[in-house]
């Protein structure tokens, strides 16, 4: 199978994670392929959010949190001493479970990442903002009110705005931590369509507690349980033909 030979976008080897003295991730190793959607599933508290937040080092802001092992993106260790965390976070975007638009205008929200990166040219900004909002399937709904407050948008629109904001800085990887869990079914399906379209251009890792969602949108699926990676395979295999009993029990709804 060729995709085992090609270099993975994200390569995780023997990764452990600790909150203070308690170990929450045990020896995680997996290869995440480029330009595909990889879903992380598992019951609450199994460590999938902690894991995904370790990829862009968002866990750095938690005191007493520590990871050991390696996470490599394009062959470079994310936790190496000389890694520029700011540059890492530009390259690896993140969308959160609860949408968090800034209390600024729609325009300023999407422009935020660009402005702190130093971009000042208005025409460039306008262009990228339009492109990002279009990619997030939000442009037509907001193009006439770019300078209105982002807080006036609906929940689903706010989440798409957060996606546009993340896409604006042109990341290579987009991490999504349960992006649709706070949304109604219609907004959720819009987000899922979006994810499907985005994978042509971005590597996507999505945490979801909704198995049907994982089955719908992802190419590869990783099943986590109590901080361990139980099984990782093509999505079809995980859902139709799981190798581990625990996986089978989970995906058939025997627990979770």
């Amino acid at each position, binding site marked *: 199978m060729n995709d085992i030979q090609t270099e993975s976008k994200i390569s995780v080897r023997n990764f452990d994670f600790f909150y203070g003295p308690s170990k929450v991730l045990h020896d995680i190793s997996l290869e995440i392929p480029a330009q595909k959607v990889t879903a992380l599933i598992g019951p609450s508290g199994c460590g999938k959010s902690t894991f995904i937040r370790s990829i862009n080092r968002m866990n750095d*802001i938690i005191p007493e949190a520590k990871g050991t092992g390696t996470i490599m993106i394009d062959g470079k260790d994310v936790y190496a001493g000389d890694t520029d965390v*700011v540059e890492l976070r530009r390259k690896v*975007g993140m969308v*959160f479970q609860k949408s*968090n638009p800034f209390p600024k205008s729609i325009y300023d929200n999407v422009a935020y990442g660009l402005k702190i990166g130093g971009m000042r040219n208005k025409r460039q900004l306008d262009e990228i903002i339009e492109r990002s909002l279009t990619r997030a399937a939000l442009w037509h709904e907001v193009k006439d009110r770019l300078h209105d407050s982002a*807080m006036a948008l609906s929940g689903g629109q706010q989440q798409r705005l957060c996606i546009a904001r993340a896409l604006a800085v042109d990341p290579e990887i987009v991490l999504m931590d349960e992006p649709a869990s706070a949304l109604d079914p219609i907004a959720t399906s819009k987000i899922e369509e979006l994810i499907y379209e985005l994978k042509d251009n971005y590597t996507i890792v999505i945490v979801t507690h909704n198995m049907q969602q994982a089955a719908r949108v992802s190419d590869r699926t990783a099943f986590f349980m109590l901080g361990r990676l139980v099984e990782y395979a093509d999505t079809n295999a995980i859902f139709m033909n799981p190798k581990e009993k625990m996986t089978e029990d989970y995906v058939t709804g025997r627990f979770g």
Partner: protein
Amino acid sequence: MTANLRRRKLFSRVFEILCALAVVVALIPLAMILFYVIKEGAGALNWDFFTKMPKPVGETGGGMANAIVGTLILIGIAALFAIPVGGICGVHLAEYPETKFSSAVRFAADVLNGVPSIVVGIFAYGLVVLPVKRFSALAGGVALGFLMIPIVVRTTEELLRLVPGGLREGALALGATRSRAVFSVIVPAALPGILTGILVALARVAGETAPLLFTALGNRFWSTSLTQPIASLTVQVYTYAQSPYDDWHRQAWAGAFLLVMIILILSIAARLAVRRLERMNRP
């Protein structure tokens, strides 16, 4: 209905009535002050009051134009001094809430808040007046600034902590450094509330008299200079009220009325601002 239930209901009713009475008793002084001030002062407030200078001792007429402007200048200096200091301090306390240093700073702010205003005035006297051997508006502004600082610090800290953590994470995830995230996202998000807190602090210091007595001193004449003594509404009211002249008493009431009006307006503005901004931040 059992006897027990009837007794409990009666007890509850009695307490409700006592609480209502307590509220009324607490409001009586406020009501009386407002009533007196309005009764005596509203009538004496006229156009001259705002535009004319005080007349020489013994003559009737004139106004408190210099004192009104003086109060504005003094709270302006206080704001210029207290807002940056108090604001940055509040940011630090919100960003590093658990350190020993922050606990000490918080305690110091609370203590400063409780220091009698006349003591702060004496301190400003020693700091600004004695070295140059002259009373000045600057000294008065500094004294008021010290009084404002604790209020600004606590308000800023509390409001910054109320900003949802998701905003910080969103900013960091886009590649912002910590300080960038704080100053470009968190502070702007809390700014409406912080500005309101500043308005309230300004209202408080606008009404101070004791700290101005030996810093800004007072001035019969028009002065906007920072290095000269300056009149203020509060000190002028104090001076006029002690005088033997009826006309000055009348003007003192007018001054008191104006002070109450200023504080009322600032408080209402602060309330309206809070309501408007809450509506903007939470649709």
